[in-house]
């Protein structure tokens, strides 16, 4: 069961909002300078002279691995096909003002990566606060943060979780022993255990609507029975098309697409361009420019994991839309007034991204693609 699915079905909400915790996670408490280290060219691939203790331990491990290689366990180059990303520091900025909470990214991810039932590499957390009619509903899209200081990677005893060019936390299904130390150590719940065969749900014989539709199994048989009807074989370009029993899986920023110089599926499919992807080492990239203008926040920054998924702005209905209910309700709300608000909102959006002397920040997918892959 995915985190959010469980959230939906949870029956125990034990603790209410806590001010102390809020302060810790206060999005406004950070400044852009805090992310400076993410910009350093060596952040993706450390300089050899800059050997940390962990690197030292790792080198010891590499030494032992040499023995292992002699025993027939060679390691393929994890960066094969990703050479064009060398020296980059790939990050994602999610603009919560633009995000409408449509969940398109979740769907795109599920079908792109052939995810089984209950697994989400891209998901969301929703929060409802306040009392009717003054209610606030927030939608936070979530995914693996590809943490700079990734605890999942540190905990992995086999290097199945490892960093590749761009600072992406990748997973090698062939090396994974299924110890689930990564699930335990990821503070964000972004690693899923794959127990059972892929897409077992397609073996269900029960008709979805009795007497009206076929069963999942009959649908599968209709399309040849080998692969699920929505199977995306492009996923096989990096890792496995489907994960198998006993291992774990997580978002890898669509490495199979990045290899082919394409943006991650969630970015590509976002209808409002709320997900902006790019290289933080490039000062002119859209992500760099947005982060220098807005005060971003990241999930659980206090843990020091240095997430590479940034959130800017928040959905502020009162700023851009007419209120129809509650204390802020406009008495004279009508279509004409709503139209005024709409054009005002559009103007605000343009101004927000375009008030820079260097010109507006182009956040279109085409721009992101060109900035990253030329």
């Amino acid at each position, binding site marked *: 069961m995915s985190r959010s699915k469980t959230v939906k079905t949870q029956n125990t909400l034990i603790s209410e909002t806590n001010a102390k915790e809020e302060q810790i996670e206060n999005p406004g408490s950070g400044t852009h300078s805090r992310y400076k280290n993410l910009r350093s060219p060596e952040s993706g691939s450390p300089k050899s002279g800059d050997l940390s203790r962990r690197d030292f331990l790792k080198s010891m491990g590499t030494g032992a691995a040499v023995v*292992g290689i002699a025993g027939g366990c060679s390691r393929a180059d994890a960066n094969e096909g990703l050479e064009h990303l060398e020296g980059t520091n790939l990050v994602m900025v999610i603009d919560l003002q633009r995000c409408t909470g449509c969940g398109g990214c979740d769907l795109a991810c599920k079908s792109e990566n052939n995810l089984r039932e209950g697994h989400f590499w891209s998901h969301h957390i929703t929060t409802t606060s306040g009392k009717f009619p003054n209610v606030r509903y927030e939608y936070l899209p979530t995914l693996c943060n590809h943490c700079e200081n990734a605890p999942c990677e540190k905990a992995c005893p086999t290097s199945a979780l490892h960093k590749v060019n761009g600072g992406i936390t990748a997973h090698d299904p062939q090396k994974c022993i299924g110890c689930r130390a990564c699930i*335990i150590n990821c503070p964000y719940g972004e690693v899923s255990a794959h127990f059972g065969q892929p897409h077992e749900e397609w073996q269900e014989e029960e008709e979805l609507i009795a007497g009206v539709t076929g069963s999942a199994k009959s649908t599968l048989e209709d399309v040849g029975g080998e692969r699920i009807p929505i199977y995306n074989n492009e996923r096989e370009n990096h890792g496995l098309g489907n994960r198998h029993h006993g291992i774990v899986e997580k978002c890898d920023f669509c490495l199979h697409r990045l290899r082919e110089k394409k943006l991650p599926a969630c970015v590509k499919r976002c209808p409002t361009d709320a997900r902006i992807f790019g290289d933080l080492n490039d000062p002119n990239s859209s992500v760099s420019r947005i982060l220098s203008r807005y005060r971003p926040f990241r999930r659980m920054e206090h843990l020091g994991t240095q997430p590479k998924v940034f959130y800017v702005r928040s959905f502020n209905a009162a700023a851009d839309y007419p209120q129809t209910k509650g204390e802020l309700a406009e008495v004279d709300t009508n279509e004409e007034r709503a139209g005024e608000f709409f054009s005002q909102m559009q103007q605000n959006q343009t101004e927000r991204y375009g008030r820079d002397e260097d010109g507006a920040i182009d956040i279109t997918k085409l721009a992101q693609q060109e900035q990253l892959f030329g």
Partner: protein
Amino acid sequence: MTTAETATPYLNRTSKQFRIALILGIIALVLGAFGVFRVLALGNLGNLSTEVPWGLWVGLYEYFVLLEVGAVLSFILLRYGAGIRELDRLGPIIMLTALAALVGALVSIFHDLGQPFRVWRPILAPDFGSLLTWMIWLHLAYMIILVIELWAYRLGRKDIVKNMAYISVPAGAALVAVLGSFLSVAAARPLWNDLLLPVVYLISAFVVGTGVVLLQHLLFSPDRGETIYYRLAYRLGRWFIAWILVGMFTALTISLVMTYAEVPATAAILRQMLTGDYAWTLWVFHVGLGILLPIGLLFWQEKIHDRRIRVRTLKAASGLMIANFLMVPMNVVIPAVAYRYDHVRNILVRFEYFPHLVEWLVMFFVIGLMLVIFAAGIRLVIQPFYKIAIQAPVAGEAAGPDSNEDFKTEKQ
């Protein structure tokens, strides 16, 4: 003094213990084999899930690690630290218990792996940045130490026994420290961080380890029925009380600190542990049967004059403590994964977990395997060791450097 006459009843008794351990072991193995088949052939991982990725098997693993290290460390502390020479002849039984627990730990965790047959990877292609890798390597080193130690006992080589005993102290302490650290460093699970597990586990190892030394003395001492047997039992009983009190103090202070600070991510989980749906596991097994009853029995037996009733009471106290000690790692591991503090919504989310039948069956299999190993050890190490012990020259006679003179005990 141990003689050939007193040796025969002892050898007969150990032969009986061998048969009991073997029969019980085989029954448990047969019972658990179905679970093992389900796990290894069909990939059934019980009620484990993404939300609750670790459960009974990890708890068992930690329990056995605490047993295997605790028994040896406590034995060495008592024998070489406190200078209780009468413990010498209990050495092989303690090492054998530790080895059986070690195998139990490794087999439990083997079943927990989603891909168990890739277990060679952290050994042949390890990532030493992971504490899990260190745990595996330390385990292997500890296993080698125990095997050499047992072999030295079998050969009656007290020099090797002593050297290996000293080596096993840092190795065992490191193993427990890494076991605790591996959990405590997980920033995602603040409960483990706040529990100071490397320290708590080390103290726990001494608590349960002293209980193991006491119980094994009561069950397997060659001096059963002699004055020395009773004296040593009473003495070990007092050490046991002392360690339980130290353990209780540690647990109490840490819990109070956590409660006082009211950090939501940990205080809320702690509250659940103390008052939630599964609080009975803590209060009934861990606190009631595992601490309060044993400590009551331990104090009560001090007032009894009948030696046999005292011994039975000591057996009950140590047995209860050791069996219910399983709740210590269980109550550390499971709540930390079953409750998750959601920092976005500031709420504690609960995930349901209770071990599946398959998980219990594997536990039976593991216990069966341990009993069979223990039985084999009685035949391969304990009986040969004891035979050598009674043949060794008595004090004052010429004894070579390799003789096991120290293993002999004067009867009082």
